[in-house]
């Protein structure tokens, strides 16, 4: 009988939900999460919204880093017909905000206490002129070192925790006949490794000054030359076939035991999982050398565009609320390998890498070690990060000296600002 009652009320709820669907409007969401785990995560959000009576119109534009999606978004926005929400992150949110396209969702934020739920480094990115215009879905940690313990055992090496030690251990691994550092020679991957070196050698304070605030004095210091020296030493530890290699191919080299280590964000975990490997025994995750107390974050988010239709405005608010709901945050991040953007969630279902990430996130936010990733468009405008990409990738693929690299970086950043 009780069961029956439950069914009836469920049915009633469902009926009510479906009847409100007519008035609650529609969200059209531009994103480029089209691969397996990512698509599943997006579908979960879609189902969530369906349950709340909001219909979902999928506007997926495939293509790696979202360049295609951004091109489509620009043309839609210029023609006065932007989608309800779009996958935009970092300083780009400010650029769109400056152009006056984004909707103020302060109401939802206030009702759901976003200021309390989100660490301030994250919420600052989501605000334009002090108003919430976007909602974060996850936090990726970029400064990870992925290792294959088997290869380390066979070469008699230990997982390095400092860059000096890295050079010693990598030499051992190489002498044992393995590739020390699995790497794909694409500009953003070069920049990802470069970023880890900057953070390790320069420390978070220098990182913040030079690569977030683009302070010319900090960039023009000896620290920059020291960073390039270490970065240059890494050239010898990657294999010569690396140019053009995709990041997940590099990850599979670690999985197969061809290579010992890879420096890559926590999305690499997905590759290990798909290959059926378990953390601790088949692979390990540790902070990149000299960065254990720091955390380079890469936060994905949805920015909300101004809507004229009242129903759609309402739907937009429902979507914003659901994104920060603990259900969605948990499912999405379990799929994607990242950690939830909001604090105070149950962490039982996450694995030990994610736990490390969560601990480091909270600890580093108190010490100032929590810094935005410039290699993933979180720290500086796309013009400046592009300039850094160019210098890093050109340096890494040539035999330039550290001094040349440093001086090129200074002039390139200056020109792009």
């Amino acid at each position, binding site marked *: 009988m009780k069961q029956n009652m439950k069914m009836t009320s469920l049915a009633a709820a469902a009926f009510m939900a479906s009847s409100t669907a007519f008035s609650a409007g529609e969200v059209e969401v531009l994103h480029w999460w089209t691969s397996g785990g990512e698509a599943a995560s997006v579908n979960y959000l879609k189902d969530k919204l369906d349950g709340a009576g909001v219909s979902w119109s999928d506007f997926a534009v495939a293509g790696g*880093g979202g*360049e295609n999606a*951004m*091109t489509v978004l*620009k043309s839609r*926005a*210029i023609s006065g017909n932007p989608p309800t929400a779009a996958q935009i992150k970092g300083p*780009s949110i400010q*650029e*769109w905000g400056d*152009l006056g396209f984004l909707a103020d969702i302060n109401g939802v934020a206030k009702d759901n206490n976003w200021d309390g739920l989100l660490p301030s480094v994250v919420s600052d990115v989501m605000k334009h002129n002090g108003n919430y215009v976007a909602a974060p879905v996850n936090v990726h940690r970029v400064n990870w070192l992925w290792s294959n313990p088997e290869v380390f055992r066979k070469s008699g090496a230990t997982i390095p925790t400092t860059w000096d030690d890295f050079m010693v251990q990598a030499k051992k691994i190489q002498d044992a006949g393995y590739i020390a550092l699995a790497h794909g*020679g*694409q*500009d953003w991957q*070069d920049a990802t490794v470069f970023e880890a070196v900057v953070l390790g050698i320069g420390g978070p304070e220098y990182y913040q000054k030079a690569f977030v605030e683009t302070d010319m004095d900090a960039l023009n210091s000896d620290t920059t030359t020291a960073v390039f020296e270490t970065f240059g030493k890494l050239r010898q530890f990657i*294999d*010569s*076939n*690396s*140019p*053009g290699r995709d990041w997940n191919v590099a990850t599979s080299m670690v999985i197969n035991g061809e290579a010992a280590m890879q420096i890559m964000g926590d999305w690499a975990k997905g590759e290990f999982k798909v290959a059926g490997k378990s953390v601790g025994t088949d692979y390990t995750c540790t902070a990149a050398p000299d960065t254990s107390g720091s955390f380079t974050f890469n936060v994905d988010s949805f920015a909300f565009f101004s809507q004229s239709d009242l129903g759609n405005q309402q739907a937009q608010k429902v979507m914003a609320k659901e994104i920060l709901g603990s259900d969605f945050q948990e499912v999405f991040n379990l799929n994607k390998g990242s950690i939830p953007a909001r604090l105070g969630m149950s962490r039982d279902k996450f694995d030990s890498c994610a736990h490390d990430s969560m601990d480091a996130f909270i600890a580093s936010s108190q010490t100032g070690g929590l810094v935005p990733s410039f290699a993933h468009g979180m720290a500086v*405008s*796309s*013009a400046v*990060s*592009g300039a850094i990409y*160019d210098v890093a*990738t*050109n*340096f*890494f*693929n*040539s035999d330039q000296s550290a001094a040349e690299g440093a001086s*090129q970086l200074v002039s*390139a950043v200056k*020109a*792009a600002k």
Partner: protein
Amino acid sequence: MFNFLERNLPKIIIAPTTLAMIVCMYGFILWTGLLSLTKSRMMPQWEFVGLEQYIRLFQNPRWHVALDNLLIFIVLFIVISLIIGLLLAIFLDQKIRAEGAIRTVYLYPMAISFIVTGTAWKWILNPGLGIEKIFRDMGFANFEFRWLVEQDMAIYTIVIAAVWQSSGFVMAMFLAGLRGVDDNLVKAAKIDGASTAKSYWYVILPIMRPVFFSAIVILTHIAIKSFDLVQALTGGGPGYASDLPANFMYTFAFNRAQMGLGAASAIIMLFGVLAVLIPYLYSELRERPA
């Protein structure tokens, strides 16, 4: 009414095409030219800054790499494609057996898109997968062919792939030209005692001048708009060593929100094309007033 139609039908039919061309070609050239004078970043922004974007462009080391690469690529691509295409056409013209089949084989690469060509050559030229590995497996342990991963040589791999794709097409054009040569002229040359090589050099090739003209015009525009081949074969790498101006333009205008700079580079590309083509068109067309 019928008379009006009869008189104006050709114009009416051509009008939409003309209109589309004026808007989509010349209109957008003008638009890009204007954009290049503004400080536009993510979106067009009509705040004019004079030639600042051009100054920034020519201060960018990556742009100079792209320009140098374009020069290397255009010269080598056109010259090698012409030579190979011409030789293939002359060999095929010797009344050999199975000409149709061979012609098809040589022409086939043209049916493939540059993306496929680029991807295939990426594997062939990859030291760990392709030619180098094959030779090493055969016992030549010191064999090295790794242009694809060398900064100074990567642009030549693009030349190789582009030549492979286009020389068959050039061959087809020359073959058609050769078939159009009046047999009596060749016979006359033979009677005057010219060797085969000499009759080709002094008689047949000069007659085929219009074919050279068409081939060069077509190859030049293939070369300048080359984008997909680079994207698929090297991704502009290692580093940005094999960038061409089109890749530069795309990266800066679309990926890096520097629309003004991208527009400036597009305009420079346009001037590059004009600088090559106008004198050539002028010298070729002047002789044939028609």
